């Protein structure tokens, strides 16, 4: 059987080669055939797993409900210290000093990442900003969203903290974080389809054991994840419950 692995469409380009190396590593380690299938956006990726075209997925937490409760996927692993934290940025000279200074009509640059956008909109609730009194500017990537702020086309943008942290100093000096989330309980999951059940245990163990070798640690470093832990079904159910409270 040939397996298909997919990863989050918003995975930073710098981490992509690491995922291909991990895929090669897992094929050798488990003696299986597996290829990576990339999707340009979450909608086309969702369509693929609804059509049963994906066996393993490093998934955005937003999709956990659909994968686990509706499609019968199992959550095998979670990344350690890799919570989906976000930053709401503005231009350094923007008039608002705090979220509560934002006003109705604020222009928001967003990329199509449902978990990032969900958490950011929740943070904006405290300033009485919602989809009904703000203007959304759809961007094809987080970098484009940040550029919209730099050019003054948008007042604020939503970025994953991991992406904000990697912006160059020149760019960061022109921007200012209005708020950073510290949620910690929402994170991506490595999930597996029912039909791949025969290798769930082996695959999960292989991911956990990446830290035991230099080659494994190099792979982890290149995908920006310090280590993987096994994930109990109840851990996944709890995170799904949390996501459901936020949607």
């Amino acid at each position, binding site marked *: 059987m040939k397996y298909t692995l997919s990863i989050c469409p918003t995975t930073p380009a710098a981490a992509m080669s690491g995922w291909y190396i991990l895929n090669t590593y897992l094929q050798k380690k488990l003696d299986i055939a597996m290829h990576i299938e990339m999707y340009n956006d979450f909608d086309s990726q969702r369509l693929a797993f609804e059509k049963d075209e994906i066996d393993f997925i490093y998934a955005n937490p937003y999709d956990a409900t659909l994968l686990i409760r509706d499609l019968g996927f199992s959550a095998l692993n979670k990344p350690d210290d890799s919570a989906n934290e976000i930053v709401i940025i503005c231009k350094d000279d923007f008039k608002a000093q705090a979220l509560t200074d934002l006003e109705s009509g604020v222009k928001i640059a967003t990329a199509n990442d449902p978990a990032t956008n969900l958490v950011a909109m929740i943070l904006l*609730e405290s300033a009485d900003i919602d989809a009904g009194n703000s203007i959304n500017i759809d961007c094809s990537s987080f970098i484009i969203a940040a550029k919209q702020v730099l050019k003054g086309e948008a007042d604020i943008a939503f970025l994953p903290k991991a992406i904000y942290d990697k912006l160059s100093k020149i760019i960061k000096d022109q921007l200012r974080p209005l708020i950073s989330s*510290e949620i910690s309980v929402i994170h991506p999951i490595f999930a597996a389809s029912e039909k791949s059940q025969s290798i769930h245990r082996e695959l999960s163990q292989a991911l956990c054991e990446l830290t035991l070798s230099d080659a494994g640690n190099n792979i982890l470093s290149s995908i920006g994840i310090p280590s993987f832990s096994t994930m109990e079904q109840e851990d996944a159910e709890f995170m799904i419950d*949390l996501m459901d409270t936020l949607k």
Partner: protein
Amino acid sequence: MGNMSPEHIIGDYKEYLLQHFNNPPRTVYVTAIETPFPAGKLIVSRTDLAGNITHMNQAFVDMSGYPESELVGQPHAILRHPDMPKAVFKEIWETASRGKKWQGYVKNLRKDGGYYWVNATVIANIRNGEMVGLSSVRRQPSAKKIALAEEQYRQLLEQEQA
């Protein structure tokens, strides 16, 4: 869940006797000191079907003012503020028990007698088709909506006490 202790209270306080559903009356001490919601964080907790706390995150512990050891296994009503009408908690329980999400504003009582407002969402935890408890996630409230909730709860409380 015992009575609150005056020695833990910071600032001038008033004493109230709260009658909790399914729990003995509890003496609480209340000050006018507000602790602001920690920006960017979520407060998360879970209870079992009896309303006892089974899980919590650090923000829950920090905002409550209690150490974690004094919260695990205690009724969630340990945070009940006397300004909160009983009808709100009845509605939370009934809504979640129907499998629906409850969302609203809640004023919580800290161990030191102070308070904090939260924008809370409560859902039932369903496992194998059975309700096994409740999860609650609280986010930073809006000042405008706190003002609306204060007025609404004051009226409800007056009706309950009439």
